[in-house]
C-alpha cells in the first residue's frame, strides 16, 4: 500500500527529485562499522573500528594502502571497498609508470568519484555501497577526502563515517580548528579518541581498531598494535587524571544510529 514507487531502479527519479537507490547505498555506509580520518598540514591519520561478524570470525580489513602516498579507510560493503581500493591502486601504479611521480590525491579522488557516479546513471548497475575516507600527501600537503556512493566527494580537516559516527563527528567538530598544527602523535591520539566515541562505552583496545598514517617523510602504513595499545594506555591514564574529560562531552545524538525510519523532506545528497 505504502510501497515506494520510485526506488526499484537507480535511474528513476522520485517527484521530489531524489534517487532512492542512491540514498539506500548511502544508508549502507551508515550501517558499516565506523571509520575516522583527520589531518594536519603535514600528516593524515585514518582509523577504523574492527568489528567481527561473529565471535568465531575474524574482522574484515578496513584500511587499505593504495600507494606510498595514499590510503583509504572504508565503511559499508567491504567487498565493494576492496574492489574500489584495487581501482585506486591501479590508478596510482599507472600514473607513476607514465610520469614517475605520485598521483595528486585530489585527482585520484575525482577519478574515484566519477567511477561511482557512473553507477548512479546506468539501469543495469548498482551504486557502490561503500564510503571511503581517502587520506594522502602530495605537492600541496596532506589531504583528507570523503567519497560517497552518490559520486559526491568532499575535502575535510577531519571526518567520521559509519555506524555511530555522529559521536565522533561531534568530538572532531569541537577540535578540528587546531588540527593544522598538530604533531603526528597528537593526530593519532585524537583519532583514537574519536574511535572511542563511536564505541559508546565499549572498552577501546588495540584489537578493536586499525590506525594508519601518512605524512611528510612517512609512507602510508598501518601502525602496529603494540604502539596503538601504548597510545590507548596513555590516553586512559590522562583521562583518569581528569586532564581533559573528552568522553562525557559527546552525548550520542538521535540520528547517529539507524536513521532509516521515514526519510526526511530535503534530499540528503549533501552527505
Amino acid at each position, binding site marked *: 500500500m505504502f510501497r515506494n514507487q520510485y526506488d526499484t531502479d537507480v535511474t528513476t527519479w522520485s517527484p521530489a527529485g531524489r534517487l532512492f537507490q542512491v540514498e539506500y547505498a548511502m544508508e549502507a555506509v551508515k550501517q558499516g562499522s565506523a571509520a575516522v580520518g583527520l589531518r594536519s598540514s603535514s600528516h593524515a591519520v585514518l582509523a577504523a573500528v574492527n568489528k567481527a561478524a561473529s565471535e568465531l570470525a575474524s574482522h574484515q580489513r578496513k584500511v587499505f594502502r593504495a600507494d606510498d602516498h595514499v590510503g583509504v579507510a572504508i565503511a559499508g560493503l567491504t567487498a565493494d571497498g576492496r574492489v574500489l581500493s584495487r581501482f585506486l591502486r591501479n590508478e596510482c601504479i599507472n600514473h607513476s609508470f*607514465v*610520469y*614517475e*611521480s605520485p598521483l*595528486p590525491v*585530489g*585527482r585520484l579522488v*575525482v577519478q574515484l568519484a566519477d567511477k561511482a557516479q557512473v553507477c548512479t546513471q546506468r539501469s543495469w548497475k548498482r551504486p557502490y555501497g561503500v564510503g571511503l575516507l581517502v587520506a594522502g600527501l602530495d*605537492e*600541496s600537503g596532506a589531504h583528507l577526502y570523503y567519497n560517497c556512493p552518490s559520486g559526491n566527494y568532499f575535502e575535510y580537516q577531519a571526518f567520521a563515517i559509519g555506524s555511530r559516527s555522529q559521536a565522533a563527528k561531534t568530538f572532531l567538530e569541537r577540535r578540528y580548528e587546531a588540527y593544522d598544527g598538530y604533531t603526528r602523535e597528537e593526530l593519532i591520539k585524537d583519532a583514537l579518541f574519536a574511535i572511542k566515541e563511536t564505541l559508546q562505552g565499549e572498552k577501546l583496545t588495540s584489537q578493536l581498531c586499525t590506525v594508519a598514517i601518512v605524512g611528510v617523510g612517512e609512507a602510508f602504513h598501518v601502525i602496529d598494535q603494540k604502539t596503538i595499545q601504548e597510545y590507548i594506555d596513555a590516553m586512559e591514564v590522562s583521562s583518569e587524571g581528569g586532564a581533559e574529560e573528552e568522553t562525557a562531552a559527546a552525548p550520542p545524538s538521535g540520528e547517529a544510529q539507524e536513521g532509516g525510519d521515514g526519510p526526511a523532506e530535503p534530499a540528503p545528497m549533501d552527505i
Partner: protein
Amino acid sequence: MQNVEISIPTLNGWLLGYPVTYLFSNEKLKKATGVVSMQSLHIYKIYVTRYPYVTGTSVIAMKYKDGVIMASDTAGSYGSTLRYKSVERIKTVGDHTIIGASGEISDFQEIMRYLDELILYDKMWDDGNSLGPKEVHNYLNRIMYNRRNKFNPLYNSLVLGGVKNGQKYLGTVNMIGTHYEDDHLATGFGNHLARPILRSEWREDLTFEEAVKLIEKCLLVLLYRDRSSINKFQIAKITAEGTTIHPPYSLRTYWGFSHFQNPSKGAAGTW
C-alpha cells in the same frame, strides 16, 4: 620489404566499413583487391621503414647557475637543401619546461600537439598541481618508446630542460626511447662536436652570460663543421622566474683563414 610503396585508395577507409588502412604486400595486392566482397579476405601486414623528410640539426643545452639554457639554429633541411630557414625548434611546455628538437620537423610538430594537449588537460584540473620537466620527460619517453614498439617511430632526438621546486632538470629522449639526464646535452652532430667542449668547460655555477658565451662557442663550431646548420640561432633559458625564448640572431663568423680560401693549397700531392 622495406620502403614498399603502394597506392590502393579504394581499399582505404570504406573496406568492411572500418575507418582503417589495410596494407598488402605488392605481390598479393591483386589477389586481395579481387576478392574484396567475395571470399574470406587475407590481410597482410607489412612493416614500412620510414625516413625523415625535413630535418633540423643539433640542439645544445646545459644547466647553469639559475636554470637551464638551450640553443639551436632555425634551419629545416630537405636532404641537403636548406628548405626552411626560420623554423622554431625550441618551444615551451607548460610552466616549468622547454623542449628542443632535432630530426623530422613534422614529427616534432606532432609531438607538440601531444604535449600541448597534455598540458591543457593538466591545467584543466586547476588544483595547484602541475607537471614538471621530469614528468614531461617521462611522458615523452613513453610516447617515443611506444611508437618504436609499433614500428612507427617519431624521427626525433629531443632535449627537455626545466626548473621546478628549485630543482634543475635536463634530459633527452631519442626516436627509439633511449633517455637519460645530464648536466649538459647535445643531439646529433652536437654530441660529437659540442659535448667535448662542454665536458671541459662546463661548470655548475656558470652565470647566464658565461653560459651564453660557452653555448655560442659550441654553436660556432657546429656552424663551421655541420653542413646543414645555418647562421641563425635561437637561445632559450628557463629559470624559477619563467621562460624566455630569444628571437633569432646571428653570430660573427670569420672565413679569412687561408685554409678556408684555398683548402688544398700546400697539401701533399696537389698543386
